[in-house]
C-alpha cells in the first residue's frame, strides 16, 4: 500500500500562492467576504505561512506552504467523537462531512491549525457555481473540512489504472497544488517507494518536519533553505 506524502522545498518556494488558488479552484472552497476574512472565517486548505525575522537591514522572509500534513499519528483523529475524521488504510487523514457533528474538537487537537470550520452556509454569487469541480462535494454549514491531498484525483487515477490493468503511476496522481507550483517546490508521491523522488528527498540532509517533537509524524517534509 502506497504511503503518499509530500516534500516541500523551501529553497524553491517563492510565496506566489499558486498552490493556494489552485486548491481553492479544485476543491470548491467557498469565497470569503471581506468581513468573514477579517473575522478569521476564511477557508484555505493550503496556506502559505510567512516567517519574517530580524531587523532592518538584516531581515529574512521565509514562506512555508502548509497543506494538511496527513500525519502518521494524527492527534486530530483520536479526539473525534463520531469517527468523522480518521486515518484510513492508505494513510490519508480523511474528513467525512456528512458524519461530522461540528464539535470542532479536531480543530483544537491539530497543532498545525490545518482544519477549517464552515461557519456559514456556502454561498456563491451566481454564476460562479458553474466552476464547481464535480468530483468534490460542497461542504454544508457546520462541518469541519481540510486538505484531502486531492484524494478524488487518486480515485480517478486508480479507476483508470484498473481499467488498464496496472498500478497507479507516480505522476498520474498529484494534488492540484503540486501540479500548479511554478517553481516545482512541492513534490508528491509514495514515501515508501524507494524509487520515488519524495522517498529520496525525505532522507535529504535538508529535510525536516515541522514540530517533529510533537510526535505527530507528519507525512509532509520540508527541505530547508540553502
Amino acid at each position, binding site marked *: 500500500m502506497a504511503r503518499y506524502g509530500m516534500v516541500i522545498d523551501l529553497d524553491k518556494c517563492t510565496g*506566489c500562492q499558486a498552490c493556494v488558488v489552485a486548491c481553492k479552484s479544485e476543491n470548491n472552497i467557498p469565497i470569503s467576504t471581506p468581513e468573514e476574512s477579517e473575522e478569521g472565517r476564511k477557508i484555505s486548505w493550503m496556506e502559505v505561512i510567512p516567517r519574517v525575522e530580524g531587523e532592518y537591514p538584516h531581515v529574512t522572509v521565509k514562506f512555508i506552504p502548509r497543506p494538511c500534513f496527513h500525519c502518521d499519528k494524527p492527534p486530530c483523529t483520536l479526539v473525534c467523537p463520531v469517527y468523522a475524521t480518521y486515518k484510513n488504510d492508505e494513510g490519508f487523514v480523511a474528513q467525512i462531512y456528512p458524519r461530522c457533528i461540528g464539535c470542532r474538537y479536531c480543530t483544537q487537537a491539530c497543532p498545525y491549525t490545518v482544519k477549517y470550520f464552515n461557519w456559514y452556509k456556502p454561498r456563491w454569487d451566481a454564476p460562479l457555481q458553474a466552476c464547481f469541480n464535480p468530483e468534490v462535494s460542497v461542504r454544508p454549514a457546520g462541518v469541519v473540512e481540510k486538505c484531502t491531498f486531492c484524494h478524488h484525483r487518486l480515485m480517478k487515477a486508480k479507476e483508470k489504472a484498473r481499467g488498464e490493468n496496472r498500478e497507479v503511476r507516480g505522476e498520474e496522481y498529484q494534488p492540484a497544488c503540486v501540479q*500548479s507550483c511554478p517553481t516545482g517546490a512541492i513534490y508528491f508521491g509514495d514515501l515508501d517507494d524507494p524509487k520515488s523522488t519524495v522517498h529520496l528527498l525525505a532522507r535529504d540532509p535538508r529535510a525536516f518536519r515541522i514540530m517533529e517533537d510533537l510526535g505527530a509524524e507528519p507525512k509532509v517534509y520540508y*527541505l530547508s533553505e540553502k
Partner: protein
Amino acid sequence: MKLTRRDFLKWSGGTAVAAGVLHRPLSSLLQADDFSSEWGPGTETYIPSTCLLCPCACGILIRVVDGKAVKIEGNPLSPVNQGKLCPKGHSAVLELYHPDRLKKPLKRAGKRGEGKWVSISWEEAVQTFAEKLKELHHQKKPHTFVFLKGNGYGLTTGKMIERFLQAFGSPNLVISPSRSGMDGAYWATQGVSGVDYDFSHTRLILSFGASLLEGQKSLVHFMNVFGNSRGENRGRMRLIQIEPRLSVTGAKADLWVPIQPNTYATFALGIAHILIRDGLYDKEFIEKFTAGFEDWIDEEGKVREGLKTIVLRDYTVEHVSEVTGVPLDTLLQVAYEFARTRPAIALSDWNATWAPDGFFTAIVVHSLNALVGSMDVPGGVLLPPSLPSGELPPLPPDTPTQAPILPPEKALLPSLPEWPFFQNLMENRLPYMPEVLFLYHTNPVYEYGKGEKIRKALDSIPLIVAYTSLMNETAEYADLVLPEPSVLERWEDVPGFASGTTLVGIAQPVVTPLYDTLPLGDFLIRVAKAVGGSLSSAFPFENFEEALEAQLNALFSARRGTPFTDPLEVANIRSLEERGWWTPVESSLEDFKTRLLEKGGWVDPYYPYGEPSRIYQTPTRQFEFFPLVWKRLGIPTPTGPIQSAPSDPEYPLFLLPYFPLVLWNGGGELPWLQEVLSPILPVNWDSWVEINPETAKKLGVEDGEVVWVETPAGRVKTRAKVYSGLPPDGVAIPAGLGHTSYGRYARGKGIPVAEILTQDSVPHTFFPSWFSTPARIRKVRE
C-alpha cells in the same frame, strides 16, 4: 389514567404546531444544500488555450465538464510555463463567470457618469460608432479619433487595431505605460524594442529592484527557471536584489542589498566604476559592439567625454557608497560577483524606472550588460526574432497623415504614451481635441488616481467608447460600453518568448459565450464595413477568425517551428534549425491548424545568435552608452545622483508603492486573488501601509491600527502593518486596490495608492513618476 381521544388530539395537535414552528429554522439547517450541478452528459475534456491575464502568454488547459469551464491547469507543452501556473492563471474561470460581467452593449441614458444605461443591440452599437467615424471622415478630421490600448490581447487583435487606425487615417494610437519600464533604455541604447533575457542559461542576475518573482512579463517562466536552479538541483543561478524594501524577490534572492530609495543609477555606475577601474569589463565586446565608452571628438570638433571618463571621475566607490548607503565591501562584492560570473544579466523594471531619473537608471542598468559582454549571448540579453506575419491587402495610399496628438518632443518611443496624453488633456494643452476616444483594456481614471480631474477633462470629448468585460471607472464615464468576451470565450494568438524560444500561444473559445459579447476584432470588422470606403477594403474578412486564419497560415508557411510538442521533439527541431534545416511535421495546412488547436500553440526553439545588425539598430549600429545617447537626444550629461532623499521635513518618509503578485496587471476583481493579496502580511480584501517597526513605535502606531497616510498630493486612510523589511524612513503601500467600480469584488476594497502619488511624467519615457512622493503617517485619533 386513561388516554382519551381528546387528550390524544390535544397532544398531537400541540406537537404539530410545535413542529410547524420549528420547521423553518430546523429545515434550513437540516436540508442538505444541493450544489451538485444539473444532470449533464458527463463529458469531460481538457481544451488548451492561452492565458491573457498578464503578458506572460502561459499555455493553459481548461477542464471543461458538460460545457462548463471547471478548472484551469498549466499546459505542460508550453515552453513558457511547462504545465505550471500562477495564481492569476487559475482565476481565469472567475473572470469568465464573474457575476458582474457586462451582458449586452450599453448606451448611456442619463448624464455622463450618472450610471444610467440602456441595453442596445450590437447592430445599434456598430451603427452609432460608425456614424461618428463617418462624420469625422467627412469633416476631414480622422485624426481626432484616438485609440487607447493596454495589454491582454493577441497579435492579430493588436495588428487590427493598428490597421484600423491607419486605414481610417488617425496617427493616434496611445499606449498605456508598460510596467517593464525598460523600453526607453532598449530604444536608446540598442534602437530596438521588446528586448528579453535568457533566464534559463544565466548564472547571475543583478536585479535593480525588479520584481522578478512578483510581476514581470515572463513571470511563470522565470519562476520555472528559478525553481530549477534551487534546491536539490545544481548550477544555482545567483540572484542579487538591490532595493530599499525587502520584496518577495529580495527575500528569495541570494543577496539582498538594501539601498537608499532612488539611487539605483548611482549604484549601477558604482559597479561600472569598479568594472572599469579594475579592468573587469569585456574589452573585446566594448571595442567591437559599443560606442560612447571612450572619449570622442564630435562633428563640431569638441572632445566629448565617454562613459569611462565620467564613471571613473564621478562615481568613485566611496562616493557611491555614501550616496546609496551600501557598505563598501558589499558594493565590491556585488561588482566582483557580477564581473566574474558569466553569463550574467543586469536588469531593472518599473520599480526603479518610474522615478524622476528613471530613464537614466534604465540606461545605466542596461549598460552593465554591455560592459560584461552579455549582449546576444546564451544567458544574456536577447532580442526575440520577429514572428512570421500574415499577408494583408495593402493599405490605400491616400490615407492622410496628420501630426500625432502629442507634441513631437514626447516621441522618443515609437508609440504615444498614455500618461502625458491625459496630462495634456487635463491641462488643455493638446494641439487638437479628440472627437472620439476608444478605450481598450485601459482604465486611466483609476490608473492615475486623478479620477475627478480626468473625468472632467473627458467632458470635452464628444464620444467615448469603452470596450471591456467588466464595468470600470473609465467605462462608467463613457457613452458606449461594449462587452468583451472573456479570455475563455474568444480567439487570440498570443506571442511569447521564453529564454530564446519564440512562441505563439493560441487562445480559443472553450465554452459557448455566456452573454451577448463580441470580440474587438469582429467589432472593428463590422464597423469598417459600416463605414465603408478605404476602411472597408482594409478589412476583407467576414469575421475575426478569418483574420486569425491568415496569421496561422503565415506560421505554417514560415518554414520554421512546430506546433507545441514534447521537449525532446522541440530540442530536435532546435538542433535541426541550428544547422539551417527544417522538416515539416504536418503535411497540410489543415493538419497544422488542427494540431495547433490540439496542442495550444506554435513554438520555434531556434534563436539566431550573432546578428548584430538585428540587435543594434541605433544610428551607430552599435550599443550606445549614455554619453552618446545624451548627446543624440540633446540632454545635458547628469553629474552625480539626482536628489532622491525626501528633503521636506513636513513629509519625512518615502512612499514606495508596489504590486503584489496577484495585483500586478490587474487582479483585484477576482475574489480568489483578493483572498491571497500578500504572502508576507496577512491582509485580505483590503489595503495596508507597511511601516518599519521602529518608525511605528516612534509614531505610536500599532500593528493593524488605521492611520492616515498623507502626501502633498492627498491623503488616504488605511491600516498600518508593521514590517521589518522596510527602511525606517520608508512606507510602502500595495497598488492595484481601491477600485470604485470594476465589479463587486474590487469595488471598495482598500485604497487606490495612485491618488496620493505626486505623478509627474518621467522625463523622456513619460511614465508616471511613482517613486518621488514624500509621505507622513498620522494617527487617526490624536
